[in-house]
């Protein structure tokens, strides 16, 4: 079955545009959504762009249109907390700070299980370290 069959498009892209204001992730908006401008995103702080040296980028006249659209962070600054419990108060963890937020971008970065990458990486390490003997089969 054609995978696009499930979806009846609702109200073109309006739904996405509206909800975008609550997209808390740094992830860009998929190009298929067809945004024409980069929207302001009040949920993320402004992100400095790392500008690569000009010799590594195409001339400014070249437009890269086949990319996802990022959102421009205009949100409040974030202060990352160093939460530690020190002995002897270690039997119970401290209550979280009221109003604190879990940065799920960081959580995704450390925790998202990606099957293929794990397997590939593990085998790469094993191979490179010479931990397995590769038996070549003669024809």
């Amino acid at each position, binding site marked *: 079955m054609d*995978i696009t069959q*499930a*979806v*009846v498009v*609702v*109200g*073109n892209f*309006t739904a*996405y545009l*509206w*909800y975008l*204001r*609550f*997209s808390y992730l740094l*992830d860009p908006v*998929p190009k*298929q959504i*067809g*945004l*024409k*401008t*980069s929207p*302001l995103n009040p*949920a993320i702080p402004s992100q400095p762009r790392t*500008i*690569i040296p000009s010799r590594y*980028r*195409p001339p400014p006249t070249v*437009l*890269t*249109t086949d*990319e996802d659209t*990022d959102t421009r962070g*205009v*949100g409040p*600054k*974030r*202060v990352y907390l160093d*939460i530690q*419990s*020190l*002995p002897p108060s*270690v039997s119970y*963890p401290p*209550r*979280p700070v*009221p*109003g604190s*937020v*879990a*940065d*799920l971008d960081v959580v*995704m970065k*450390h*925790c998202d*299980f*990606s099957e293929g*990458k794990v397997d590939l*990486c593990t085998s*790469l390490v094993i191979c490179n370290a010479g931990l397995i003997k590769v038996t070549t089969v003669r024809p």
Partner: protein
Amino acid sequence: MLGSLRSPQYVRDCLEVLRLGGGLDNGKRTRRGQMDDWKYIYLEGTNSTEEPSTSTEDIPQPNPIRRPRPAATTESESSIDPDAGLTRKRGAKWDTQVVLPPPLKYRPYSSQSAPCDAENPRLFHMFWTGPFTDKPYLALLSFLFTQNTGIHHHEYPHDSPICRPRFWMWINPGPAASIPNPNALRDMFNQLKLNPWASPFLHPRFKDVIKFKLWNTTEQLDGVPELKDEWRAMKETLFNSGGHVISVPDKAKEHGSSHPGGNGTVSMTLAINKTAEEEDILSRTGSKSASSYDKLSVILSDMARFVLCHRFGGIYLDADTIFLRDWEELWGWKGGFAYRWSRLEKYNTAVLRMNKGSALGTFLFRTALKNGLDFHPMTVSRYTADAHLEGLLLRLPDALFDSAWLNTEYYQRERPPQPYFTELVIP
């Protein structure tokens, strides 16, 4: 490609990051590199970091960058169909344009006048069919033990900086397909009072944090603006799960006069034919045992979680959930989320967060309506994937809610999240 390789994402390592960032360790830390990278809990300032400016295009931008095509300059470009590239479901008509309310203002905690934000109520929803048992009892007990409910106060202080979470336990009085009783609410409380697993939570001490709510399918579906005019036409397929439809015999007419809701109170409030086989599937309660498990109630709960989140906002939890710690920081992150179905790139909606009346909710209900009201998690995963909307319902890693899952499916056996029980010594 070497550059795209990441270090293995073991659940065990992830749990270490989560534990240290949340200060849940005992302080005996091993010195490791890159610890700043592990900090994941933050507080937000009051003001925006940047005023929206129109002249950002003057700033040198890296190239290639994620910038969309510039506004159309020629006539042919501006007349591009906005639906281009999207495939319509066979045999379906385009849905009418949805009118959505203007976006809400983003308000960080520090700029709120009260600790609770009315737009993001801290409400946990749970759905239970049939008599109350030790299962939902444990869920409620763990809620009281872990969340910052402030029940130690006689009178909750008005100036508390904490937004106390609340728990709404939705009780579906009978088997999913049975007829509701006009005295259902009174009966529900009478039964809860008599039930040893439920009665402790009726104590006035818990009145502000735990509420028992009567689930009435007709009333709930009528409360969803996206469904209210159309769901009755779908009553044949109301119990649809992953495309598998269980039809409920319509006996509503015979009982029409005794229906509390009057006209149009049909479908999940239908009486049923009590032949042995049908009774088997249609009228089991959800709580007896794994073998006599009410399929309809499970399917109903697949939909109920979306209805509850869309109507009231908050987080839905499956009834087999036990809280292990305070969810403050998860409430702080205000986007929608569910979690991952083990190794698959699909949702498990056992934990589901959506905002009240969100556009994502509108999209899901309208799409489900055209797909036989199918809210099976696998089908929901298709809705969001096909519409490129997965970014709006974050698929959180299993490590957060079910850290053993991957391991029990024979992944990461070489580095399990918890040590194995290799032997059991009974003294």
